């Protein structure tokens, strides 16, 4: 991919992010931070590439270190988000699965 295609993806994703994040209800801003934390650890992709590559031992160990750090974040971030979201309950549980508003 050339630079311009990548830049296009980036700019469009910024717009998507802008509108999606404004639609997040303020009550869920803390889970939002926890989950953005978890997904920004997609940087683990770079860490895995570095850890798997042969040829440069220093780069490999840096990569393995980054894999550990990013994994803490991925597992911890998603788990703590799940834990928080499980606590949000509606009044009296009327049984109608429809939520929202």
């Amino acid at each position, binding site marked *: 991919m050339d630079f311009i295609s990548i830049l296009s993806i*980036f700019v469009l994703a910024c717009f998507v992010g802008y509108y999606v994040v404004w639609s997040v209800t*303020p009550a869920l801003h803390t889970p939002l931070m926890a989950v953005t934390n978890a997904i920004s650890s997609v940087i683990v*992709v*770079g860490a895995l590439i570095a850890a798997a590559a042969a040829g440069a031992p220093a780069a490999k160990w840096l990569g*393995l270190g980054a894999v550990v750090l990013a994994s803490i974040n991925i*597992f911890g971030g998603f788990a703590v988000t799940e834990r928080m*979201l499980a606590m949000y309950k509606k*009044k009296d549980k009327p049984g109608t699965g429809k939520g929202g508003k």
Partner: protein
Amino acid sequence: MEAHAVNPWVAVAYLIAGICFILALRGLSSPATSRAGNRYGMLGMTIAVVTTLLTHAPLASDYVSVGYAHGYEWLVEFVHLDVVTAIEILAAIAVGAVIGLTTARRIAMTAMPQLVAAFHSLVGLAAVLVGLAAWLNPGAFGILDDAGQIFLPSRIEMSLGIAIGAITFSGSVIAFLKLNGNMSGAPILLPARHVINFGVLGAIILLIAAYVLSGAGGPGEGMLIVWITLLAFAVGFLLIIPIGGADMPVVVSMLNSYSGWAAAAMGFTLHNTAMIITGALVGSSGAILSYIMCKAMNRSFISVIAGGFGADAGGAGEGGAREQRPWKRGSAEDAAFLMKEAENVIIIPGYGMAVAQAQHALREMTDLLKEHGVNVKFAIHPVAGRMPGHMNVLLAEASVPYDEVFELEDINSEFAQADVAFIIGANDVVNPAAKTDKSSPIYGMPVFDVDKAKTIFFIKRSMGGQGYAGVDNDVFYMDQTMMLLADAKKMVEEINKSLTD
């Protein structure tokens, strides 16, 4: 080797991962869809990780990859797997998983801001490590040109990723120490700090330019990268130490944004769509949250970053000269009696409630009031708690249904109909000085119109303490206000006792 020759299916897999992350955030638009959203996030991460593991499996050094012309070569490569490295990678993931999962399970909800700050620091450090690894072994990342030099754009992206990652790391560590109480929340003001900060930032940019334009662009060449890393660590530290505890919600949101931009910069280096999309999402998310927080405090983003808020509030002159005005003291019995007879009660919780761990007792109180036919609502200010939405989580933990919890602008008009406004652990967010007193440090901040309620109960430990902003509050001295001076949890428990009698 052609740069970034990727199998289209691999690109599609990363794109799907990116879309899953968008859906993860979209799910958070309502608590009802949020858990499905979180599952999308996990799915996206699994796709990204599995794709990377398959396409970048560690291979024995005597095997030469033939590329991915047909899409099934990974099966052939599997035979040549470098088993030791593969086990090391899986072990690294397992170690991270154990640490992450135990932390997530054990952490108290009151400590969520610290946890998030700690997680940010890890993303930042991971970005630095990946950037340095790319610098040492650019071939693995496909960013080497034929002359054995790293591509110029890749050098910019890589060094930016390292710099932003390093700032995120050291800034988040300071934020963590301040939030966790290991470090005083008071701002630490160095003389000429703006000059120092701008100087160091400028130096980083110059060094990046020097590195990009230098002839030494081979693997591990150009020690400038090391200097960029060290200076960026320093600037993250310098940027956060002058910011006071009251502004930490903004700082945590801002670092959230930085961690996203760091991931995006690494995504540019790797030409990886999942990383770029995620970085953009997280970057915008953090930026929007910082904006919301600043607006809720009526502070400009620049003034928060410049720091120093709360440093001079203690000695602002009014401290000693504060006039003694008459105020009324109420008792738990008064509160119980008046709320039992009331029709509408609005509860305004603040961080003091969380500190006193009063949320469970408070939920019991609302249950008892509901038995008496009272209509109870919770009102939450955007800056209540230590991070955006923190108070909502704390109430959810105490099993308060989320449809009884309202945001500032949704409930503010209802105070005129409210019989009782019950303030517990909040202070600045109900201070009318924000509307009337132009000289007040919190002037312009949106606040609850509690003064319109018929009766106000204000739980406070003593009359001495003040809010974060260190300003006196007229609500204490209003005719309809009764001060309940005690520990929040004890007071609510006493009210509960009188309600059951």
